[in-house]
Every structure is written in C-alpha cells, then in structure tokens.
C-alpha cells in the first residue's frame, strides 16, 4: 500500500479536535488530518503533490502546542493534570504546518467557521456567475467549498465584478477564463515543480492578477492538461472537452492508456451522443490515481489522443481481397475462409503483433500459430529488445518510482524519454528533485538532459545530475565501459541505495540494443542492485504492451527471423509494418498470404488477403502489461465501431474454425487460460487486477478539491509480475557502429511523441503540433552537404526517399543525422541505416 507510514517512519502525536492521533513526523498537517482523522481541511492553493505556498488562506485552523517551560523544557500542566496548551491568538494556515509532537489543532470552532466563510466570500467578490455553463461546474472545488463553508447569501452583485477575458487560449489545448481564476498558482507550480517547464506565470497585481504563458508557441508542454485537473475552478479547461457534457452526466470507465510503456491509469468519461449514433462516446480522458504508475498525472497524448477510436478511417467492415479489389464479408464465412488458408499452409505460419495488442489477444494468437504448427511469433517493432532481461532484473514487485529520492540514482541512456514515455520522464525528474542523482546519456541533446543538468541555482533547488554525450550509435559501448570511461559517474551509480537504469534504443540496431540492455543488466547485477526493491532495469518498449508481447512469447528477434525466412502465411496484429519500415516490402513480397487484424486500412492491410477489423482499447475489456511488468486491466467504455470485434475473439474463432478447440467467450476467460499456461501470470485473474487499495494522498474521493479532479481508483491498481529467473552478468560483444561510406551519412531514427501514425493523426486538435518532417544535422555534416538550417533536403535510404527540412545545430553529434520516424506518411527508416542527403534547390513540397 502506498502510505506515508513506512516501517522506519518516526511517529509523533498530534491532537485534532480533542482526539490524539499518531502521524508520521514531518508530514504536512492537511495531508495528515485527512489521512488519519478523515478531517477534510478545505484548501484551494495547497496540493498534496506540491510544496505549500499559503496563498489562499482557505485552510485556516486554530493551532496550538503543548506549553513548555522556557528554561527547563518541561511540559506545563494544568491543575487537573492535563497539559497546558498555548494557542496562537489568530487563525493559522494548516497547509503550511509540518506536524510535530504535541501539536494541537481545532477545525470546528466558531472562529474557524467564520474564517472559512470570510475567505469564500472574498473569493466570490469577483467570481462570475458561470456555474451553469462552466465545464468544471459539478466537480468544482470552489462550488463544493462554497456549499460547505460559504454563507448562503451574497453581499456582492454582478455589476461590481471585475471583467476580464473569458476565452483566452493559452495554447491549442487549454483555454483560460481570466474571470474565474482565483489566483491559487497551482497551475504555475505544477509546471514549475512537477514538469520542470515554468511556462506559466502571474502578470499584474491585486484584482488584476492574471495567468499568462510565456512559451512560444502557446502553452504546449506534454503535460499541460493536468493543470485543468488541479485548477480548483473552471479557469483552465481543455478545448477537447469544451461544453462536451456536464460532469454529473458522465459515466466513468476505468481504463489504461494505449500509448506507451508507462501504462497510465485513466478514466474514460463517457456519455451517449447523438452525433455518435446514440452510442456511448468518450467525452474526455481523466487521470485515475495509481501511485505506482502515474500518481495522478497523465500526458497530453493520453488525454487528447482518444479520437482515433472514433475516426472515420477506422476499419468497420471485413475486407477480403478478390484480385485487386476488396469486398466485404461476414464474420462466420471469414473465420472459415481464414482457417482454410491457414491449414493449407502446412505449418508455415507466423505472426507479428504490435504493442497495442492486449495480453488476451496475444495469448490467443500464440495459441493459434502454435496450434497450426508454426512457432514464429514476432514482436513489432523490431527496434527495441531486452524484455526478457526486464523480466529478470527489472523493478521487483512492490517497487515505485515515486519513492526514489535522496541517496538513489537513475541512469537514462539512449532514450529521449520526454518523447518516448513522458510519464517516466516526469516521475524520474521529480525523483531528481527529491534528491536522486540523475544521469542522462545520449548521442544528442534531449529535453531530459537539459532538465537534469540545468543550473540548480536558477531555481534555487539543489539537484544532482550529469550528462554523458557520446558519439552517436555508441551507447552499448558506453554502457559496457562505464566503469572505465566514466569512473566517477559509475561509482556514484553503483554506490546508490537504489539504482534504476532506463535503456532505450536510440541510435542502435536491434543487436546494439541487446548489447546495451545486457550491459545495463550486468551493471545492476555487479553493483548488487538487481532484485532490490526500487532498483532495476526499464526499457521504453514501443506500445502499451511491450512486456505482454514478451510474456506471450513474441520477440523482436523472431521478427527479424521472419523477415529473413518469410513464411507462407503471415498474421499481422496491430502492426503497421509497411508504414513503419521501408525495407519490409522486399521480404513481405515473398509471403503468399497476409492476414491483417487492425484498426485502419493501412499499407499492410492493403497488401493483405484478409483484413479483419478489431476493436481498440476503448470498446472492449482487456489488459496490458506495462514496462514495469504491471498487468492492468481496462473496461469497455465506448460503443462499438462497425463490425469490429476484439482481436482475441476473432483469433479464437479462427482457431475454432480450424478445429483447434472452442473459442473463449469472454476476455476474462482468456485471462483464466493465460494464468494457467503462462507461468508469469500465475494467479492473475480479472478479479485480482480489479483490486484497489487506499492510496496516499487520498485524492479523488468525494471532496475533489484536495488533489484536483483525478479520479479515485475503482477499477484496480493491477498486479506487478514478480521477477523470474536468475540473470547472470554476461559478457557482451558490442556490435560495430554503422559506418557511412563516402558521400553517405548514418541516419538515426528517433521517436516523437506527436507523429503522423494512423493512431495519432485523428487527434485534430494536436495536429498543428506535429512537427513537419525534418532531418537534424551537425553543422560540420551540414557544411559538407552544403545545407543550411531551414533548407530543403532529400533523404534517400534503402526503400525510399523523402523531402524534408534540414535543421542544423550542434545538438546532434557529427557523422549521424537524426531523422525522426513517422513524421511523414511515407515509411522512413525504422532502425539506423546508411543513406544520403542532398540539397533540393527548387521549392519543394514538404510531405507532411
């Protein structure tokens, strides 16, 4: 359980309204009163995840302490033997108090009531009468606290109120209503303390005080949506949910983010909708508290990226190829036809599945392929590997990145976490703020590197961090030789109480990544951290279920094997092979029949014989295994799209048609089979995954003002799979880095959070933030190619070419061009490769 009381926590006694409580020393009074006594001290500016500022005065209480003799320090007693209490003459703010032994508080006296009433009245002097049209109305801390503590009658009237801009877009996503702001600075502090991008600020003074953004363009951090949750009024609202529904009309469905390895817990707020055929529709995505995973935050991609689930481009009908055309079909006949094709392959069957397929889908798919006599199960994309090592030396059960702090160390190597797994970047950065030592190693500049090494004096915080900049592509060698070439850093890492290593694949081939992950595992084993709680290895595997792929038997190495020895029939599940990889068409042309199960008519679907529409995470039950090996379930939220069914069902029915046993009837039943047959999942059922526990801080209960509008976790906090096997420190052979010949250059694909993938591009409101395709060069390389910053360039690589903008700066290393994936609709290199870049002189069309 996530609690403020650990085994070694020192307890002190405080007295709340006449009753004694034992609370952990050093805790915040508001937090503790809520945790131990269920006493909801009202707050506006205080937030349990941020430092107190004492700005709003809502939390007024009577405060006292046991009187002690000044000279001797002895407790002074009344005549009746009770200790004397010295009360402060005036009310004090509870949020700025740290509990200490002998603290006495009163929260229910006349004076306190009057204090609260006055603060509410003061805040309402200029608050507009917007509740009926305000998106916060119904779950608004100001509304709730006014009902609870305010005076029923107003002495102010509308004409006297301050009139300010009511519709100010802070960026594309967040709207500010300046009349509603109560100047609590929660949004400013969130950006500054939690995200580390202090782009919001106060402007002017007194009644005119207003929030402004000083970022250009607009307020566009990857976490901006969280400010709307913690804003205690409707001053900050998202453009996505604007007037979408009233909060009380929404049905909250617990779910899991489908985007990345963090597995952020979310709540899908749904409501029936006329424009969606009267079916339940996702109106907004809210964070759901899981202190082990995402605390109470989610990234903007998770919050705003749900539109693909209802996109017009979703595959809604079964498509079967006849010659060069497709015709629609029914499920029953399709199951039979597919089964027939599969059987005719005589065991030459393989499958490749992507990271958005669920554990259930993958299990059924693996059963089908092995049942048919095939044994090749490939994981997409073959860029990242090492899931097997995460299963052995990952973070053990009970670990929590939120507990890392002073004395601990973190190494992030070959990964741009901000773009790959933003939630990990947020949690590791806050760990650094709590005192952990954060080392960022990469071949280029990344946002996390900037944050980890920024001058601590600017923010007045003591943060300890370092950066290692290596020659592009040499991450594995750097990790393997860390103890020799970066002695001091390696020593600090090895000596830390807890050590977390995040080993990405940037600039590495699959073999290179394997070497890197093995070296990282070696480091953890040698330093004695392997298997210790809160220490271990993380790999930012692509997709939400990278670890699930591993546990169900899919591996990226097998994908390479499939490419080298193409089977007769290939089943593709949620893997956009042809859109992702320009070289895939060469080997795919040797596959007789491709059967695709997916969300969209993507390039691989267009090359397939059978295209089966399957449901996204929103329309069905299922589970993902996140990068920390936590299995988490999600529930059906949205109405179905067309004929799509869950992939486990489609695959199970194909197996049934192929006489491989009866299809399962529910996702829960598939999980029962998984628990029986996959050792790591032993004991996991949907019921176990649905278990919840009390979490500190107590956010999202009835109050809604204390921690904002994050939702209480009612759907389950999931179950972390225990470490298995005993990894040994193994000798690593680092493959040679790619070398470019004369006139060539190494192209290093990187991941961008916002890209033009089929899943993300339907998110219209974020589209303007998807970068136009570019290639990023070091000035030296650019000079050799006669390219200047902003020029057009044609990048040629194995399997294609694309015209992009050149960006020139020394943020990237010499000899390698950073060339992000999926920024154009054309397939660009998936793994590092050698290519050429030429200047394009005529005004070129950028292919976005």
């Amino acid at each position: 359980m996530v609690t403020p009381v650990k085994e070694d926590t020192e307890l002190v006694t405080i007295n709340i309204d006449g009753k004694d409580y034992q609370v952990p020393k050093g805790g915040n009074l508001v937090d503790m009163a809520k945790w131990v006594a269920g006493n909801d001290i009202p707050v506006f500016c205080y937030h349990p995840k941020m430092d107190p500022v004492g700005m709003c005065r809502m939390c007024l209480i009577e405060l006292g302490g046991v009187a002690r003799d000044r000279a001797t320090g002895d407790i002074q007693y009344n005549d009746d033997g009770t200790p004397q209490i010295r009360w402060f003459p005036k009310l004090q703010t509870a949020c700025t108090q740290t509990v200490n032994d002998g603290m006495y508080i009163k929260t229910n006296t006349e004076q306190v009531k009057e204090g609260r009433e006055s603060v509410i009245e003061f805040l309402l002097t200029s608050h507009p009468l917007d509740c009926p049209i305000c998106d916060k109305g119904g779950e608004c801390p100001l509304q709730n606290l006014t009902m609870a503590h305010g005076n029923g009658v107003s002495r102010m009237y509308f004409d006297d109120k301050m009139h300010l801009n009511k519709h100010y877009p802070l960026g594309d996503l967040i709207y500010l209503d300046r009349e509603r702001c109560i100047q609590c600075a929660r949004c400013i502090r969130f950006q500054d303390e939690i995200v580390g991008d202090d782009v919001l600020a106060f402007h002017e003074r007194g009644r005119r005080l207003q929030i402004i953004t000083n970022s250009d363009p607009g307020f566009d951090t990857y976490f901006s949506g969280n400010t709307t949750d913690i804003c205690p009024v409707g001053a900050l609202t998202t453009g996505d949910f604007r007037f979408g529904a009233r909060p009380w009309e929404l049905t909250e469905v617990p779910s899991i983010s489908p985007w990345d390895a963090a597995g952020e817990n979310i709540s899908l707020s749904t409501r029936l909708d006329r424009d969606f055929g009267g079916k339940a529709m996702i109106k907004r995505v809210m964070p759901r508290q899981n202190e082990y995973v995402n605390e109470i935050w989610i990234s903007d991609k998770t919050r705003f990226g749900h539109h693909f689930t209802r996109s017009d481009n979703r595959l809604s009908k079964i498509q079967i190829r006849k010659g060069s055309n497709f015709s629609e079909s029914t499920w029953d006949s399709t199951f039979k036809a597919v089964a027939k094709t599969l059987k005719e392959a005589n065991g030459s069957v393989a499958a490749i599945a992507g990271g958005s397929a669920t554990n259930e889908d993958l299990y059924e798919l693996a059963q089908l392929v092995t049942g048919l006599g095939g044994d090749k199960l490939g994981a997409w994309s073959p860029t990242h590997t090492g899931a097997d090592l995460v299963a052995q030396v990952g973070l053990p059960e009970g670990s929590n990145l939120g507990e890392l702090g002073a004395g601990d160390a973190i190494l992030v190597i070959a990964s741009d976490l901000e773009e790959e797994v933003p939630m990990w970047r947020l949690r590791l950065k806050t760990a650094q703020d709590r005192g952990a030592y954060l080392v960022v190693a990469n071949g280029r500049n990344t946002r996390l590197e900037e944050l980890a090494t920024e001058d601590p004096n600017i923010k007045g915080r003591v943060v300890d961090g370092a950066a290692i900049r290596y020659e592009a592509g040499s991450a594995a060698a750097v990790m393997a030789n860390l103890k020799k070439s970066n002695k001091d850093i390696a020593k600090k890492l090895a000596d830390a109480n807890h050590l977390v290593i995040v080993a990405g694949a940037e600039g590495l081939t699959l073999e290179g990544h394997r070497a890197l992950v093995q070296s990282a595992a070696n480091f953890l084993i040698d330093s004695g951290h392997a298997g210790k709680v809160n220490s271990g290895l993380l790999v930012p595997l692509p997709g939400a279920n990278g670890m699930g792929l591993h546990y169900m038997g899919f591996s990226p190495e097998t994908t390479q094997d499939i490419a080298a020895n193409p089977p007769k029939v290939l089943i593709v599940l949620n893997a956009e092979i042809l859109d992702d990889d320009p070289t895939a068409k060469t080997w795919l042309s040797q596959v007789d029949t491709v059967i695709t199960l997916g969300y969209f008519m993507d390039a691989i679907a267009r090359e397939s014989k059978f295209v089966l529409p399957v449901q996204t995470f929103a329309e069905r039950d299922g589970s993902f295994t996140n990068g920390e090996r936590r299995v988490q379930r999600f529930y059906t939220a949205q109405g179905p799209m067309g004929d799509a069914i869950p992939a486990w069902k489609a695959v199970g029915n194909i197996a049934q048609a192929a006489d491989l046993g009866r299809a399962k009837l529910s996702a829960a039943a598939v999980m029962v089979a998984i628990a029986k047959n996959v050792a790591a999942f032993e004991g996991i059922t949907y019921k176990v995954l649905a278990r919840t526990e009390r979490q500190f801080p107590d956010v999202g209960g009835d109050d809604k003002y204390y921690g904002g509008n994050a939702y209480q976790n009612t759907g389950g906090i999931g179950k972390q799979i225990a470490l298995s096997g005993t990894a040994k420190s193994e000798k690593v052979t680092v493959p040679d880095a790619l070398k470019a010949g004369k006139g060539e250059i190494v192209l290093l694909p990187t991941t961008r959070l916002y890209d033009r993938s089929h899943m993300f591009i339907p998110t219209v409101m974020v589209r303007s933030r998807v970068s136009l395709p570019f290639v990023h060069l070091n000035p030296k390389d650019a000079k050799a190619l006669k390219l200047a910053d902003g020029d057009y360039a044609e990048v040629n690589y194995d399997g294609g070419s694309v015209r992009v903008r050149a960006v020139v700066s020394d943020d990237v290393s010499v000899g390698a061009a950073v060339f992000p994936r999926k920024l154009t609709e054309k397939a660009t290199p998936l793994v590092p490769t050698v290519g050429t870049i030429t200047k394009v002189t005529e005004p070129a069309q950028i292919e976005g």
Partner: protein
Amino acid sequence: MNIIKGFMTTFKHVLEEPVTLQYPEQVKDFEKRYKGRHHLRRYDNGLEKCIGCSLCAAACPADAIWVEAAENSDEERYSPGERYAKTYEINMLRCIFCGYCEDACPTQAIQLGHEHQLSFTDRRDAIYIKDMLIDAPADGQEATPRQVEAGVYTQSIPNMEDPS
C-alpha cells in the same frame, strides 16, 4: 320538512350551470400556472435564452430531457455567452409535468405552457426536438443563429439584481 329541504338542494342545482364541458368542442380556461407542454423562450432581441447548461435535465425526475451543448461565436450566435443548446429534446411520454425543469433553469428559458393536447401514434413522435419547443422570434427579430457585433453578448446569465 326534511324532504322539502332535500328537494330544494336538488332544484338549486338544476338551475345552476353544468360543470361538464363538451370537450373537445369546448375547452376550459386554464389557471395561469397550469403546467402544459414546454416552450423554450427567447429574449426580446430574438436570441435564445437557453444556454445548454443541462440543469433542467439534471433536475428532471423522469429523465425526460436530453441536452447537448456547443459553443457560440459572434458569427453564429444562438444565445448570449459562450454556450448554447445544440440538441434539446423532451420526451413527452416520460414527462410528468412537474415543472422542476422550469425551476432549475438559470435563465428562465424553459417554461411550461398551456398546451395539453398531446397525443401520438408513434413513440418517436413524443420526443419534441428543439425546433418544436422553441418560440418563434418576436416580429421583426431575426432567427438564430445569426451574426452579431463582436464582444456584445459576453454574459450567459442575465444580471443579478442588487440584493440590498
């Protein structure tokens, strides 16, 4: 004697006007507060009073009202302020004519009128959509949506009266 008294009463009533009305030829006058089917009202300037806040739907004990809101702009304005009702429907078969919706409305947009002759041959016809509920604009007033001068209609809720 008692018999005469009894017949007196009878005769008195014989001479009185009958209370029975020959409905539907004759229709009773209604009390001002009679609660018949709803109207969505407009301001004198023709803008819709309803701001799509759904409070009526929340108050309705019969779950008869369905509101979906959208955003106004000065080019296409339905109601003052930022929000208007894109969809507004009342299912007259569910409605129990309690008038809670009227009480809940912050702009007095929804009001129960006197029309009571509601009969349908299809359940779906019982759902009154916004076009059926909303009053026609007063003479000489343009219908909604319409283009208005920028920055005039910024306030959703009419001004509060001075409480002093």
